[in-house]
């Protein structure tokens, strides 16, 4: 592997997508947890724990979309038109929850349950759609002459529905462990008790995806079931399993950050495994980052902006999490 422009850009996009999954993951997760928490005061605390940061989290999604168009226009056009259904479901979900998020604080008491419901439904739609999209990408798309040549419902398969449900557990777990850090007393206790079952469910999902992927994707099979590679690759599943065990152990740990960090590590390893499996393809099963890349002049021109601006966004993100660290004790921090 040498560091040419398409490779650098693949890392940029991959990094942006990972930031999105980690950051928006836990605030979507909070929406997913709403049905388990009925108390109005506790719901306020949950939402307040992400209020200062949630829209910053979504910026990574827009940046990812625009960046993908700039750097890999072929991938952008093929993947987005192939994933028409899930992408629209995700966008509608994000709009609904974004607006519900803001307006539930400003609503009169009688309207509040409606905004709360929309907040949950929107989070559910967005998460499920992203999971379905992930599954569909793993299975790959029919491409002819660098254009999507399949049907409008090609994204729909038992596997993609399964990955859709899997992501619900992943984001739910991120939300739960985030709230362990941000809350106390009864709410924290409830969150702690959710860690074990969610970890088991997520581990089972990741296990099934890892077994199924090489079965349906030939290049993944060749990569993983090859003696010269396996030494380098085998740590991935071993570490993932280790973090899953650590996470269950951390459910009642005094160190409140431990569970969240374990979840991040577990998901990071899963994401890494996925990226390694697909590399160097950007549109599975056969189009590589080099074939999908924009001309050199586009890659260079945009990279200049990325080099200057992305670090600033990162510093700001870090800073705002620092400013808002600590427990959310009351609800008057917002609205």
């Amino acid at each position: 592997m040498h560091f040419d422009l398409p490779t650098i850009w693949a890392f940029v996009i991959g990094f942006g997508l990972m930031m999105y999954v980690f950051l928006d993951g836990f605030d979507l997760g909070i929406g997913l947890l709403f049905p388990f928490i009925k108390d109005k005061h506790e719901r306020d605390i949950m939402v307040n724990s992400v209020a200062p940061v949630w829209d910053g989290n979504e910026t990574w999604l827009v940046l990812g979309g625009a960046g993908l168009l700039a750097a890999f226009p072929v991938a952008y056009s093929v993947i987005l038109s192939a994933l028409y259904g899930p992408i629209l479901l995700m966008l509608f979900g994000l709009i609904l929850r974004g607006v519900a998020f803001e307006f539930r604080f400003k609503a009169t008491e009688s309207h509040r349950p409606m905004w709360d419901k929309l907040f949950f439904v929107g989070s559910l739609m967005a998460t499920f759609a992203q999971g379905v999209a992930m599954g569909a990408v793993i299975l790959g798309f029919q491409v002819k002459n660098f254009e999507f040549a399949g049907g409008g419902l090609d994204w729909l398969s038992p596997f993609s529905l399964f990955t859709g449900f899997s992501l619900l557990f992943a984001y739910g777990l991120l939300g739960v462990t985030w709230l362990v850090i941000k809350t106390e007393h009864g709410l924290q206790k409830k969150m702690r008790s959710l860690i074990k079952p969610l970890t088991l469910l997520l581990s089972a999902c990741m296990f099934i995806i890892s077994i199924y992927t090489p079965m349906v994707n030939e290049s993944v099979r060749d990569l993983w079931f090859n003696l010269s590679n396996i030494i380098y690759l085998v740590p991935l599943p071993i570490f993932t399993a280790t973090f899953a065990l650590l996470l269950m152990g951390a459910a009642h740990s005094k160190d409140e950050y431990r569970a969240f960090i374990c979840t991040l590590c577990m998901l990071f390893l899963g994401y890494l495994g996925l990226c390694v499996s697909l590399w160097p393809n950007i549109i599975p099963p056969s189009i590589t980052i080099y074939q999908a890349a924009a001309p050199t002049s586009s890659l260079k021109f945009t990279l200049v902006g990325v080099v200057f601006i992305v670090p600033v966004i990162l510093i700001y993100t870090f800073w705002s999490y620092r400013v808002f660290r600590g427990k959310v004790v009351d609800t008057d921090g917002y609205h």
Partner: protein
Amino acid sequence: MIDLNAIDLARIQFAFTISFHIIFPAITIGLASYLAVLEGLWLYTRKPIYMTLCRFWMKIFAVNFAMGVVSGIVMAYQFGTNWSQFSNFAGSITGPLLSYEVMTAFFLEAGFLGVMLFGWKKVGEKLHFTSTILVAIGTLISMTWILASNSWMQTPQGYDIVDGRVVPVDWFEIIFNPSFPYRLVHMGLAAFLATALLVGASGAFHLLKGSHTQVAKKMLSMAMWMLLISAPLQVMVGDQHGLNTLEHQPIKVAAMEGHWHQAEKGEGVPLVLFGWPNMEKERNDFAIEIPNVASLILTHSLDGDIPPLTSVPPEDRPYVPVVFFSFRIMVALGILMIVLAVTALILRKKGKIYERKWFLRFCVAMGPSGLIAMLTGWVVTETGRQPWVVYGLQRTVNAGSPNSITAMSISLLIFVLVYVCVFGVGVRYMLALISKGPADDYSLEDDEHLNKRPARPLSAADGVEI
């Protein structure tokens, strides 16, 4: 029954979502500069009224900004979901320009928006003022990238075509393409005008109600000065923009003018005041014309000729009625704006500007006119460049995604439903904030709100329930 295919539905969807979206950034651009002016005036004069106004419009700015962000996410993905052939063909140029727009917007939000909205008591006055100015500049830079991208699609240059795809060759030429400077200034002024008209209408509204009189007078007065300067300036810029279009996209101008056939030598082109462009018969029905005036406007001579619609085959012409009527609505509203500005000046001289009820009602009625003029202007330029999506390079019919009519119909329906509900609530909330008006004896020291932890743009707005 109108027979719509998937491409038509994709066009309607794009037109609908972008029209909804553009309203919010336009107000963001205008209000950001207005806020910078208000804060500057406050620092200079120390009159509390400027601070009251600044804090009041900042709340509305915050709500509006949030709407812009939410509706903008859709735009970042629509080029792929609905226009994959276009993205594939020209993404190497529009992609980087859009990326820069997104990065500028986030840079701005990351750095200065938070300080502007929540930093009143946390940073010094000068630093706060600097942040407000930088937010204003940031919105203008953001607009610049979008207009560079759009203008390149109208008047492309600085590229090569390799293997059926656009390859950027010279980024300076791409960004500073021939129609870019005109479009940029025209849109910038449109944003300022639209905002001034909204501010003026808000002031007039409160004067009619008899509430917040002092603040309302200041709003109305500032808005009318702004209008008096910008509206005539916009006419001149629009004229120049039109001449530029005549040079690079003559058929668009022919559609705007309803000019079908080559004029006889020395006859000149008439100005069609009204008519119904008939695409089949290639003429205007029921036309009322003033001889030679279109020649005068477009060529600055009485008998100058411009290329007519029939100089290109029918398949290379835009759908004329839409261009023709949108253009007339825009121009008519522009004239009304000048009438409003001049009336305000006359009444001001007589000292009656805050008293004449009919004038105040006129101001309120003109509140949305800036936004309507801006939207119809965009309809003129976007419909007028059809059948091309990238002018002369790619036709709109060849730019779509392979989506079925069913998929497109369902998604369009949901878009309309979701947007009307969601942004309807947002707009209603902004109007409620406006009609509640500012706090009369506002002072920074007493603002409890600012002692709380800063959070999200929308949390800068409070005091009104939905």
